[in-house]
């Protein structure tokens, strides 16, 4: 039986990026992680359809693809909120006040690491170390790195995100 490459799950143009990444690696199975990176970059997270599509394209069992996607912390299977706050919990940040940042987020936003607010406005994640130890403690809000951060500054910034959405 001749095997045909599967069609993308939908007509969404972003699947072209995923297909291009797999093609660039000659549809080699060892480039699975590269394919997952491209899918997450395109869609913000890995959805079930995407995992199926990658598995079929690379001729890998879905169980294996799921196993890889859940093994690595960088991949997420849940859609992120409109804004993302990454609090660094590396050693330098830890001893310089990262726990206070997390405490504020739990108190004021009712968010613990890994959670997204019910209204989908904000996701909180932690990073093992973002490598900006000179600026400890740091957080990354929507790709914007904020250093020597106090809980108050972070609170203001995140409130600003919400107001911006509302306005």
């Amino acid at each position, binding site marked *: 039986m001749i095997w045909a490459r599967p069609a993308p799950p939908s007509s969404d143009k972003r699947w072209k990026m995923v297909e291009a990444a797999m093609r660039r690696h000659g549809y080699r199975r060892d480039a699975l992680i590269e394919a997952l990176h491209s899918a997450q970059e395109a869609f913000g997270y890995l959805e079930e359809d995407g995992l199926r599509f990658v598995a079929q394209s690379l001729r890998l069992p879905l169980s294996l693809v799921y196993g890889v996607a859940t093994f690595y912390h*960088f991949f997420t299977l849940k859609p992120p909120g409109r804004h993302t706050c990454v609090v660094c919990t590396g050693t330098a940040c830890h001893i310089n006040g990262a726990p206070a940042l997390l405490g504020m987020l739990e108190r004021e936003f009712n968010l613990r690491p890994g959670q997204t607010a019910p209204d989908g406005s904000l996701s909180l994640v932690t990073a093992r170390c973002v490598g900006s130890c000179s600026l400890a403690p740091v957080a990354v809000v929507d790709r914007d790195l904020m250093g020597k951060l106090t809980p108050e500054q972070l609170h203001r910034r995140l409130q600003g995100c919400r107001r911006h959405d509302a306005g």
Partner: protein
Amino acid sequence: MTPDELQRAAAAERDAQRKFEHHLHVCTAAGCLSAGSGHLKQALEQEIAERGMHGVCRVKGVGCMGLCSAGPLVSAEPEGWLYGQASPEDVPDIARSLIEGRPVRRLLVPSDLPFFRRQLKVVLENSGRVDPERIEDYIAAGGYAALTKALSEMTPEEVIREVTASGLRGRGGAGYPTGLKWSTVAKAPGAEKFVVCNADEGDPGAFMDRAVLESDPHRVLEGMILAAYAVGARYGYIYVRAEYPLAVQRLRTAIRQAERAGLLGDRICGTRFGFAVEVRLGAGAFVCGEETALMASIEGRRGAPRPRPPYPAQQGLWGHSTLINNVETLANVPPIIERGGAWLAGIGTPRSTGTKVFALAGKIINTGLIEVPMGIRLREIIYDIGGGVPEGRRVKAVQTGGPSGGCIPEEHLDAPVDYESLAELGSMMGSGGLIVMDEGTCMVEVARFFLEFSAGESCGKCVPCRVGTTHLYELLNRVVRGEADAGTLSALEELADVVRQTSLCGLGQSAPSPVLSTLRYFRPEYEAHVREGRCLAGSCGSGDKR
């Protein structure tokens, strides 16, 4: 490129650079970028253009200058001025200072600080000087001369002989002799071999590899090509963290440029030697820094380690002999080939030769990236280079080696920095994260912090690590909360010993080190938590319970 062509290219670029009277180097490594150096560079370029100085002054983005705590940093050459914490508002003054020949005093960072004087730069010699996104700049600074020399004058055996003579040891932390590793791979049977650059820098508080990749990616590439020539590999991978997008982007640019210059790909420099490199992204698994887990990840699988032997040199990627070296190790290779192994062997101590790059962070005044000769004392690093602890507080401990290392107390700060001395103290060289803790840091809480890390990053394959690290974490939790009893500390010690001796890979084997080293040096702190429910550092909240 032949050696002659390379020299001509270098001379042409140097001539082009000499046309400018002034050079403004703006640090565009991650630390300064996040302090705003991107906007600063734009503002400088605009100011220079508006003043009609673009013919005499060149603004160039460079890699890390080291003193990250004073970022964003700008240096003026040939004046030799270093400006710190510069903002776009300072730009007119900076431009005027070049015309008037007088530095802007309020921005000036003294260049004779011990921070600069006590360092010795080998790996970082180009860092903060060359533009990491231009191969011409690297070539003008003498780059790729080692490669063309090796290919035109040396056999692979001679390359290995120089690396062996240099005494270079693995900078990823374990310190395995690099020359020995190379000759094992070179001698291994089989036509297909691989070279892997381990850039999966996972220790929290460590950003040396990131800085090297962002500041001087061609140097790592050159070291890798030399390694491939020496061991007979035709294909290589750079396994780099996806969390370092700037390093990834600069590496990819460097690979493209080297290919175009005929320094990578088929028939390198017109010889029969060919080598291709591919970047592979990690995906946030600490265990993938372990070499067998790293290989599993490159093969597209879950990053679970396997027992060694067989070592990667015997059975690596897809069963083929594979050489795995860390970023900093490879960055040491070009100068060894150019200046000879004996040159590097003359730096440092007899058993730990050369230099080591450290990322200095925590409770210290001068945070940043430093490179020091091996054998320097920890005290010199912390007080002379680091400037001591802020607010005149005392150093309590220095953490090296991340979650695999330990805490070295103040009374041992006169220990020399070499692989053996740090191991004897119950820590390790590690990849180079060096975090200073002061009196306000609770050491039990620090141990708990690292065990939470190791338990969360355990891949789950072997029982001692999967269950043991979690249980160690829970025991430490009990101590911190003041819920421990007289048996808790001995239970901690016993379990730490089991996990250390029976885990499958380095992650589990070294995960107990933070517990054992803090128990060894700070036992009274543990006892105060257990007996009185009191934190001697007053920081972990234990005292609030009673």
